[in-house]
């Protein structure tokens, strides 16, 4: 059976070159970067090299990069660390309603610690209105965080403008760029942000390495307490192989970004254009043009996402969904909800996310296997029969 992986938002494969770069550090070069001997020197050199590569990808200084274990840790660190460092100035923070849970729930934890939180809404395309952010900012607002793009619906936010307004109002500005870094151009100076989260497993690096970039001079309270690794800002033995992999992935992403984007766009557009002619009652979610190159997210009406995923999986196709049933907590995606998509329709969420391993044939295969799946489930769906009866009745 054909196997087609279209779930690159969940995680990308590790590219061959990245694994090759990592392997020495899983074998003989096993030293701890803090050690004072050859093994330590070798490991230290490797992570400083990687730091340079990651910095170069986002237009930053190497000394501003703090390696973390994941995007989730980078977001926890950013939100908690920046807020705690600023709390003498105020205790109000502003984040968008569609942030990743690692950011949103960190903000909720701050609420438990006595901070106040304002969520900024999005429009039906998932776009955060810069003026909406500006209006949310108060005298005591210390921190604003808006993601660079949502991996779920692909919408890219006008970060530069939001950052400018936030900073004019005297707040620190953080952006979660986990979904964008390594995929589209991310330059901290161009975006004019103060802090930025990224993660390697979103762009062909390994799981286990992310980073928080914090602008030189910005204060942050460490999240992981302990040793003096990462300039005293993030304790714990450095995950050398994963950091090396992240560095290599950053280097490759920088070199190949344009050609990658072209490939992804072609695939994504082929699907976005092909699907509506084969399946009725499909909506594209997210912004039609301001979206991640590999992202094609839909709501297929009258049926539910998990069931679609299972039937797709039986045909060898891997995708994802923001339906309530696919989430462990059985709630429909807060992103779709915030975009005003009615719950019954959000249940039909289906997300195909492309990567460099995909081909046009993969798209065509989806276009071939998905319609009968949708058909089968609609034949089973009481919502669909009601719809048909009403339609017939209406005519």
């Amino acid at each position: 059976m054909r196997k087609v992986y279209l779930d690159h938002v969940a995680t990308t494969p590790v590219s061959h070159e990245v694994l090759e770069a990592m392997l020495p550090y899983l074998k003989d070069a096993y030293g701890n970067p803090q050690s004072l001997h050859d093994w330590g020197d070798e490991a230290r050199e490797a992570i400083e090299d990687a730091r340079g590569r990651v910095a170069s990808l986002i237009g930053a200084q190497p000394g501003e990069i703090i390696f973390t274990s994941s995007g989730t840790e980078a977001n926890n660190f950013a939100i908690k660390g920046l807020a705690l460092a600023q709390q003498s100035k105020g205790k109000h923070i502003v984040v968008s309603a569609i942030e990743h849970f690692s950011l949103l729930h960190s903000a909720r934890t701050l609420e438990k610690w006595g901070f106040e939180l304002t969520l900024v809404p999005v429009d039906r395309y998932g776009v955060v209105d810069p003026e909406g952010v500006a209006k949310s900012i108060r005298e005591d607002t210390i921190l604003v965080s808006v993601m660079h793009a949502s991996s779920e619906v692909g919408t890219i936010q006008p970060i530069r403008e939001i950052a400018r307004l936030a900073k004019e109002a005297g707040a620190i500005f953080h952006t979660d760029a986990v979904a964008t870094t390594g995929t589209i151009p991310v330059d901290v100076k161009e975006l004019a942000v103060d802090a930025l989260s990224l993660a390697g497993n979103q762009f062909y690096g390994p799981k286990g390495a992310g980073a928080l970039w914090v602008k030189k001079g910005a204060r942050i309270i460490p999240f992981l307490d302990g040793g003096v690794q990462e300039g005293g800002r993030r304790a714990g033995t450095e995950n050398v192989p994963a950091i090396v992999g992240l560095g290599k992935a950053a280097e490759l992403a920088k070199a190949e970004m344009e050609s990658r984007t072209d490939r992804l766009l072609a695939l994504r557009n082929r699907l976005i254009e092909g699907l509506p002619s084969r399946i009725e009652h499909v909506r594209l979610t997210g912004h039609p043009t301001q979206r991640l190159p590999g992202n094609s997210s839909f709501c297929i009406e009258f049926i539910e996402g998990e069931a679609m995923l299972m039937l797709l999986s039986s045909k060898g196709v891997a995708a994802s969904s923001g339906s309530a049933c696919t989430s462990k907590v059985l709630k429909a995606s807060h992103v779709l909800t915030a975009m005003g998509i009615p719950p019954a329709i959000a249940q039909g969420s289906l997300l195909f996310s492309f990567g460099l391993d995909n081909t046009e044939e993969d798209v065509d295969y989806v276009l071939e296997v998905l319609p009968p799946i949708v058909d089968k489930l609609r034949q089973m769906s009481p919502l669909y029969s009601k719809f048909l009866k009403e339609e017939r009745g209406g005519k």
Partner: protein
Amino acid sequence: MPVYNEKVMEHFMNPRNVGEIENPDGIGEVGNPVCGDMMTFYIKVDDNRLSDVKFKTFGCGAAIAVSSIVSEMAMGKTLEEVRKITPALVAQELEGLPKNKYHCSNLGAQALNKAINNYLKKQGKAGESKRRRKDEKE
């Protein structure tokens, strides 16, 4: 490690008794799409037994598998026997469900029960109206 076991998968992939019954003796609908799952059961009753059971389900794999197995478990049974199909029995018949999907087995049993209630109510009414017609004749 698949989320669902083979039995659940088999019912999901090949659900029994999907569809509607025209002029059913009872209909039971539970859930709503806002919560995630929605099931409609249709029954035909002959001689106090379910002579036919069909369903339509909007929902996840578990909801569909539960609907299928419930329809199978109920088919041909007396109303009293069907009343004894508890969520626990449904889950057991499916050889287990993931924790966060237990509620689907509730839905299946509930929908079937509702269909029976609906049948009994109609019966009651039918009985009444029959009686009334009888009365009128007398």
